[in-house]
């Protein structure tokens, strides 16, 4: 079933009383030679491209399209032969459109007919196995493509676009309507796996991923497809920010861009670490996945010293501020069997100066230190800084 049909002008002239200029072919529907469905993310739409071949008479030819609100759905009608040109598209009383095409010579000509169709979305989802011993991360991406409409697409090329176009919403609200969300819950999932990998094509600033085969995409269904597994080197870091510890997995994406989504991480023994937000990563970009608390590592952060080194006075001899010093001690206890890479990030008051250990770095208003804590050991770190504080 197709979303539009092309019917001859002769047919039209009978039903809609159009002028007799139209050049009739035969009274039958025209099927597209090829169809592409590119699903966009978070705008509830897919970009439909259909290549159609029409037999035209010399001069003006009229055809009939059916579809919902096509003109507002960025209808793009593109003649592929310079001997043909689009003249007008007019609405008709029967929820359709009359298209006038002019041909310089009679013949068979191809056109691209493109427009948005609502009811589609996609999301990325990842499974991963973290090999802690060899510091490797086996990333298994999958993509869920959803068709919330009842219409089935047969033998269609499926793609999904990673990118954020400016899309000006007019009458319909952004996102999926409630009844469509209901439809998603009832959708019939299908899983597809192919020998050929998913191909990526850059179009302007976006990435378009193509399934390497044509599929049938039934109405109210969810199509899950599997791009290639990636093996990434991973570094585990314990980040201590304002005394709070979090374990962060750092890696670099060497392959095609990875869309954001959710990831569930397993250990090699299949035990689950948990599900986390996967931030997405461009080619050659580093990414971080915070994976929660650290069980075999403990941090104690104590503000051990505060001194007012100098007082500032006003002319009435009132105290108006101090030049003060603060010392913070961190005790890092590694109970694990492997050494741990640690990052300490401590916010500083405006204008603060680091005065203690030279290994600390000032960066963007924060004190920053990297170190390694050996297995089954304790490390004591001291941060010292001076700053001006107003009084009272």
């Amino acid at each position: 079933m197709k979303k539009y049909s092309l019917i001859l002008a002769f047919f039209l002239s009978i039903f809609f009383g159009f002028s007799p200029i139209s050049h009739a072919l035969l009274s039958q529907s025209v099927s597209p030679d090829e169809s592409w469905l590119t699903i966009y993310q978070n705008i509830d739409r897919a970009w439909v491209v259909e290549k159609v071949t029409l037999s035209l008479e010399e001069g003006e030819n009229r055809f009939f399209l059916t579809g919902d609100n096509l003109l507002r759905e960025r209808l793009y009608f593109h003649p592929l032969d310079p001997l043909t040109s689009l003249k007008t598209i007019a609405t008709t009383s029967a929820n359709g459109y009359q298209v006038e095409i002019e041909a310089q010579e009679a013949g068979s000509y191809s056109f691209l007919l493109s427009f948005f169709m609502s009811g589609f979305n996609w999301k990325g989802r990842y499974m991963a196995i973290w090999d802690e011993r060899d510091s490797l991360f086996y990333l298994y991406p999958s993509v869920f493509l959803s068709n919330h409409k009842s219409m089935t697409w047969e033998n269609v090329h499926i793609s999904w676009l990673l990118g954020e176009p400016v899309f000006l919403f007019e009458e319909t609200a952004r996102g999926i309507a409630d009844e469509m969300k209901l439809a998603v819950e009832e959708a019939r999932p299908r899983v597809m796996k192919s020998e050929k990998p998913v191909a990526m094509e850059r179009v302007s600033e976006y990435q378009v991923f193509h399934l390497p085969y044509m599929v049938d995409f039934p109405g109210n269904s969810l199509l899950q497809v599997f791009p290639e597994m990636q093996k990434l080197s991973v570094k585990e870091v314990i980040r201590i920010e304002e005394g709070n510890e979090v374990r962060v997995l750092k890696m670099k994406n060497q392959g095609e861009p990875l869309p954001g989504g959710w990831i569930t991480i397993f250990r090699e023994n299949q035990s689950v670490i948990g599900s986390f937000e996967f931030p997405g990563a461009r080619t050659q970009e580093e990414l971080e996945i915070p994976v929660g608390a650290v069980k075999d590592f403990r941090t104690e952060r104590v503000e051990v010293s505060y001194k007012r080194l100098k007082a500032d006075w006003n002319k009435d001899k009132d105290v108006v501020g101090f030049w003060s010093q603060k010392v913070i001690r961190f005790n890092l206890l590694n109970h694990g069997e492997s050494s741990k890479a640690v990052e300490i990030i401590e916010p500083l008051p405006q204008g603060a100066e680091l005065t203690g250990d030279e290994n600390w770095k000032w960066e963007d208003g924060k004190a920053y230190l990297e170190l390694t804590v050996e297995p089954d050991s304790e490390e004591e770190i001291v941060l010292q800084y001076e700053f001006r504080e107003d009084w009272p």
Partner: protein
Amino acid sequence: MKKLLLVLIIILFISGSALAQDLIVEKNPEEIFIFAGDSSFYQKETWVVELQPGENIYSWEKPFSVQEEEVFIQVEGGELVSLISDSSNESTKIIIVAEEQTKGKIYLIFPLLYLDLNYLYQYFWEPDKNVPAGTLLVDITNEGQEPIPESHFIISGKEFIFGLKPYETKRLVVDEFQAVRAEKISRYNPLSYGDTDVHFFWDLFVSGDILFPAKIECFEGSTSGVVFLGESYTLGESPELEIKVGKSNDITIEEKIEKQDKLNQVYNREGKEVLYDTQEKKVYKVANRSPERKKIEVFVPLQESYELISHSVPLSRVESNQISFVLEIEPQEEVEVVLEVAGKNLTSGFAFRSW
């Protein structure tokens, strides 16, 4: 005396009635053209009339939706003296004085409020071309309940002949053209865009005679034929278009303050810091994660009272409180830009403003 006045009034009334010619009743206008403006249509009617010496009064049935002050009337062959609008109906009296008997013309121009007009540009950029191809389209909708008979429409200097059924929309191809110049460029301007994303633009220079306030839809060729990239609006006031198409997936920007020192502080009687200078250093790390060369413009917001100490790339002063730099970055290249400034006589904050 009263009788004399009555006779005079009757004579005046009879003579006036004899000269009055009803344009609508007697004949149709010789020509009707419908002109497209920037956002609405105007109808121009040309009436050919036989002017008599002296005063000529014509009656015109003004469309219901048109206000008196919206009608522009011009006369050939005589002098337009006055108009009298009767509030009880839509009739307007047009009073023209002619010196001699002659064939005259009355031109009436008024807006057609029941015709909706929306321009649309569709730009299609083939990957191997230097400029995109543009198509200027127009959507015309008859929002009235009456059909519009086949009429001459003048749109962007071109004539189209068609009619419109009630509530019918027609999309016409008005013009097909090439942009004169075109460039793809990304921009990072958190202060202006309200986010730290990199947005990509099509900067186009187009011919000045096809400029209309319109929506712009941008497309690019791909293996699947054509892909929609994004859309924007133009006011149609300049041939230079800066079309914000979408967000760039391939360029990342990281900005960090590396130094922020206060100097020469001055305190008031209360001991509060009221004036100071600063020495500041900021680093931008810009990376291109794509296999193509990319161009990006980065905007840096500043307090007005600053002095540049050093900069690792050429800078442009966009405004007194904003500078920008442009980078052309090779595939998979990372560029570090270092800017050092001094804040002079600041009363709050630092020279590098945060957005």
